[in-house]
């Protein structure tokens, strides 16, 4: 077991604005070049505040986001722009959705890019881009539970719905590393499309989807065997990155940064069912579904905005300004009763 690492429970970063709204959820956007998180009220269709991650925008970059199983905590992977080794900025930051306050900062390792939370909420997993590793942390104590070699330029990371398996992508190696959580062991590595970015498990955990930015594909992995069983071709120019599933798991939404489009893949047929382009912001890098699945929100890296998609018409219904360089987007659940 790796010794206890730093866990800074004190509030690490300050200015918070934008409190209290009627909606049952808020949308959080990591603004890579703003060193901040934008808070969006989906009912008002407006940014209602920001959470400052660092006072040094341009030096510190928040990127990957994850949400706790109860939806009440947003985790942000934070690093600097110098992917050579671990720096003081490299951390996982936890934000309480109810208060929009930073509640914890975890030391993670070199250049954490994306973050995932185990289904029981007890483990934080992060991809360490600079050191070609994945790390597991105890969410309560910050203790490092394990650190694992991956391919080069580690990026996407996801925990299976049963909490037994973690998939980690590596951009330069075109690989997914499979980690078994019961004994914290690397099981295997498998090849997927060129420059894999994001990874997501199906609702039942039987499949996983990996977006390959340069390949322009989605690799469909059979999780029990850890084998690629299908490849969805979105086109060389699609540059797919972030993904999300609707609540039923029927449609996989894929952000196509190269074509400024959202590709909607039918998970039963592994075919593209819809391509949403009209009125889409520029270079969508991530996408998230609302809890009821009726809306999707995109993080548009080049237009500093969030596009709102109605999933009935599969069309863009609005644009919401965000900060500079939106990278990832997640939904946090507001406890309306409180």
């Amino acid at each position, binding site marked *: 077991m790796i010794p206890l690492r730093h866990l800074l429970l004190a509030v690490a970063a300050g200015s918070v604005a934008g409190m209290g709204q009627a909606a049952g959820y808020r949308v959080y956007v990591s603004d890579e070049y703003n060193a901040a998180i934008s808070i969006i009220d989906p009912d008002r269709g407006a940014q209602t505040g920001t959470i400052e991650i660092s006072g040094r925008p341009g030096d510190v970059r928040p990127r990957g986001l994850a949400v706790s199983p109860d939806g009440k905590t947003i985790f942000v992977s934070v690093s600097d722009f110098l992917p*050579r080794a671990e720096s003081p900025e490299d951390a996982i930051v936890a934000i309480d959705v109810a208060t929009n306050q930073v509640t914890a900062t975890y030391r993670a390792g070199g250049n954490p890019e994306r973050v995932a939370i185990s289904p029981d909420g007890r483990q934080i997993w992060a991809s360490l881009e600079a050191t070609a590793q994945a790390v597991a942390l105890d969410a309560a104590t910050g203790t490092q539970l394990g650190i694992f070699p991956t391919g080069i330029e580690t990026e996407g990371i996801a925990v299976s719905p049963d909490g037994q398996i973690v998939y980690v992508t590596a951009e*330069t190696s075109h690989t997914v590393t499979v980690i078994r959580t019961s004994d914290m062991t690397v099981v295997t590595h498998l090849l997927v499309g*060129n420059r894999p970015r994001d990874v997501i498990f199906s609702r039942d955990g039987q499949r996983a989807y990996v977006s390959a930015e*340069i390949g322009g594909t989605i690799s469909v992995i059979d999780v029990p065997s850890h084998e690629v069983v299908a490849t969805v071709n979105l086109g*060389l*120019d699609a540059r797919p990155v972030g993904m999300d599933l609707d609540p039923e798991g029927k449609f996989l939404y894929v952000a196509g940064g190269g074509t400024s489009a959202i590709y909607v893949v039918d998970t039963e047929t592994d075919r593209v069912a819809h391509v949403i382009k009209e009125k889409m912001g520029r270079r969508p890098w991530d996408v998230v579904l609302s809890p009821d699945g009726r809306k999707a929100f995109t993080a548009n890296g080049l237009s500093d905005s969030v596009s709102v998609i109605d999933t009935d018409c599969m069309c863009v219904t609005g644009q919401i300004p965000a900060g500079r360089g939106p990278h990832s987007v997640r939904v946090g659940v507001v406890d309306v009763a409180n």
Partner: protein
Amino acid sequence: MGTFTRRRLLIAGAAATLPAPLVRRNNGLSAAAAAAGTSPEPLRIGAVLPIGGAAMPPGRINIRAVGEAARMGLVLGEEDAARNGELVGWSTEVTIANAPGVDAAARAARRLIARDRVSVLVGGFSRDEAEAISEIAEEGDAIFLNIAAQSDALRHTCRTGMFHIEASAAMYLDAIFGWFVRAGYRNWYFVHDDSLEGQELYERALVSLKERHWAAEVAGRGVLRQDDSRDFAPVIAEIGKVRPDVVLLLTDWRTQLDFLSRYEVSGNLAQVAGYPDPASQLRDFYFAAKQAAPVFGSGYRAALWEATLDSYGARELNARFDARWGRPMDPPAWAAYQAVKIALEAAIASGSGDAASLAAHIGGPQGLFDVSKGIGMTFRPWDGQMRQSLFLVKINPDATSSLALDAMLERASLAGELPAIYMPGTDPVERLDQLGEIDPSRSCP
């Protein structure tokens, strides 16, 4: 020929800790290799570099710095290949031969095939050298990855198993005209030497202007003797008379420096652009150009790669190179690195390190490669040229001689990309084919 240096696998500590065998291949890869779950024969790569020695004479043929940059790229490529290959059960051996000049390069190539049993040859620091190595590769059942020879004529030879990671002269010229003409530089004066290569560059420049940049015109040209007693005065005097918008030096790196130093004090006002042979894409050259001509030597240059590029995963690749060597990744280093990466990915995908399998994958429909330029790159079937974007670099007039990493990075900065990668609504292959010879009717065997 110099001595051979055997580089052994450099398996990073973390990779060495991986439990074995950890081999899974996707359904597009070799079933046999996957079933075996063990490493096949190592992929053996031999590189022929003009590193030279202390006796290497100064002058335009001394491209030791280019060879050294390529060597550093190969080493990082080998180290990354060890990590990447280990994940999926492949190993790579890179052998580097120090062999400046055509004859030495040919001997080295033969020896690498015969003694080291390489199936991939990397090199090509002149047209003659590349032709010689490609011929030996073809005879010896190896593929040849050209990382530095830009000749269009070389691409027309269309030899089996020859692929060009270095951009062609036509691609560089199209890129240069694309940038400058759009910026309003319409009236061009060309300077080239009296060699066959100089004449070919000039003629290709005319083709680019005639077929793609109708708004531009030729103001004149000056021809230099290709020896060490060149007299620039008549050419510079004529430039003063015809007063072009821009002078394009279609010469080697050394001639460009000599010309710039004389032009700087001539009183002419036309901007000067230089043809980017590999030696003139080094950061050492950027500083030398600025030193030779603080005004006209600190202009814009076309480049295969830029060490300050921070998009498309380039930030991470540049950072790894910086950390490994303490100096920026010059374009020949990038090309050499990509040669190893492309060869290994072809071997993994095809399940074989033999030349035929590698060539079939690299040149075939499945041959799609991520070279940290933001879009999947393929090789043109008609000439084996890798489709790719090029970069516009601005030399920093305040560049210093410091060899500190940050100071070397600051010798130039990224100014543009051509073709622009982010162009939704256009065909990505057609977009990349905006540069260079477009002749889909032709096909290499």
